[in-house]
């Protein structure tokens, strides 16, 4: 058996893969948070609930209407995104004039309400969601078996992260978003409908969470609290990456996922807290985060 640092390579690769998969979810979710925070200056506490909604919409599409995984991958984020846009337009947008704390409190309340509602209807226990036929099974990589669905999670999340990054950095719409992040009033004086841009951005962030939820449904159980467990870690990721930094959120998401996986191999007792330890160190040495601009 091949060993690295006294660890069998299978175990190492296995945990690396688990880390990469967790990292994929961290990256997608912290990307959404960063997009929202960048423009709206709102810390979206409802992000975990929107992720959970994505998974539930996929599950309900399957059980209620027979719509399968592939269409759900598109429809569920769309529904969660539109729901987010509606919430922004009717409620969240009224809070921008107040202290940022109100936005945070509002989204926190929204998360509790959503989770409570789903618990009322579906109970707290998790429900399985089978991966699509095309992605079941595993391939033998020689040194380990790779479940195909897990490989797909990594590829899909990477593709979406790159897509969103390109949208923001390279397109006209992205230049509106970047400019409005710097000086919304001036951008609006140019004739750009900034309030609509804010609605779109919150919808986009929520849709990203919803997409992550659908991806997660076959990996984890679909349950009302699936998001609240994850979101704490994701907040730590955002802090390490630097609030509002798009690239920072993506890179840090994968990095910390992998760091967590490696810790499981070398020092399993610390694997649950390693991300928070890293967060503490980064906050001490570089309070603006690894990719953040010093304020």
């Amino acid at each position, binding site marked *: 058996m091949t060993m690295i640092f006294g660890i069998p390579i299978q175990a190492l690769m296995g945990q690396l893969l688990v880390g990469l998969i967790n990292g994929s979810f961290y990256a997608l979710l912290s990307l959404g948070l960063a997009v929202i925070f960048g423009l709206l200056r709102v810390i979206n506490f409802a992000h975990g609930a929107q992720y959970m909604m994505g998974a539930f919409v996929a599950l309900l599409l399957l059980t209620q209407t027979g719509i399968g995984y592939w269409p759900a991958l598109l429809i569920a984020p769309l529904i969660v995104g539109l729901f987010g846009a509606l919430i922004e337009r009717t409620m969240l947008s009224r809070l921008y004039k107040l202290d940022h704390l109100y936005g945070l409190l509002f989204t926190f309340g929204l998360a509790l309400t959503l989770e409570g509602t789903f618990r009322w209807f579906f109970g707290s226990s998790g429900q399985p969601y089978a991966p699509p036929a095309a992605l079941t099974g595993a391939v033998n990589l020689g040194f380990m078996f790779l479940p195909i669905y897990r490989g797909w999670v990594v590829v899909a999340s990477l593709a979406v992260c790159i897509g969103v990054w390109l949208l923001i950095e390279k397109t006209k719409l992205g*230049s509106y978003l*970047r*400019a409005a992040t*710097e*000086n919304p009033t001036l951008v609006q*004086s*140019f*004739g*750009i409908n900034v309030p609509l841009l804010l609605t779109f951005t919150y919808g986009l962030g929520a849709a990203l969470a919803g997409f992550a939820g659908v991806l997660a449904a076959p990996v984890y159980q679909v349950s009302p609290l699936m998001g609240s467990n994850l979101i704490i870690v994701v907040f730590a990721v955002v802090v390490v990456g630097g609030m509002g930094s798009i690239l920072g959120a993506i890179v840090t998401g994968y990095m910390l996922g992998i760091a967590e996986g490696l810790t499981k191999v070398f020092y399993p007792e610390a694997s649950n807290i390693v991300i928070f330890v890293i967060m503490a160190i980064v906050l001490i040495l570089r309070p603006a985060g690894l990719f953040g601009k010093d304020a």
Partner: protein
Amino acid sequence: MALLSVANLHAWYGESHVLHGVTLSVEEGETICILGRNGMGKTTTLRTIMGILRKRSGEIRFAGQDMMTVPLHRTAKAGLGFVPEERGIFATLTVEENLMLPPVVAKGGMTLNEIYQLFPNLEERRSSPGTKLSGGEQQMLAMARILRTGARCLLLDEPTEGLAPVIIQRIGEVLVTLKARGMTVVLVEQNFRFASKVADRFYLMDHGQMVADFPVTDLPQNMAMLNTVLGV
């Protein structure tokens, strides 16, 4: 009828009452210049006309349209373009992205080629971040991006502030070019040697009101009064 007419305009920053009944009017194709000491409300006048400062009362008409009820993201569409005192160049956008940011609101604006002819520096530096430009180049960029949109009236706040004489001269040439194209300009300026070369008419502002208004030809007989009010 005047292209832009403002009557009895009041404006507030929170509780602080800054404009106390501003009245002015600008004919199509005219360049007017607002003079006044620091803190007298020149910038506030432009921001209020543009609709950035919303706590306001009085009358603003532009091209026959009542602007008091028009939301901020529609004032540009009416034909008003604003070049702020701090220039407002975006650091996360390239020079060209900055230039292309404001949507075109009407025909008759400059094309990208015409703009690059007028401001060759901007073309050379089109892919650097906007704020990597020198102060003079940033001022050119701030003006150029509005010229692209087809705005009929330019609200231009202290374009020469802090710039070297050669750059100031360059900006003067640009304003003369714009005038030849029929552009209407509301200029705020402290440098009145510069202003007297481009402006048709002057307004003198003091404590949130216009206290005098005269054509450039009457500048000599108003010098004594200007010196008192401006304290130069």
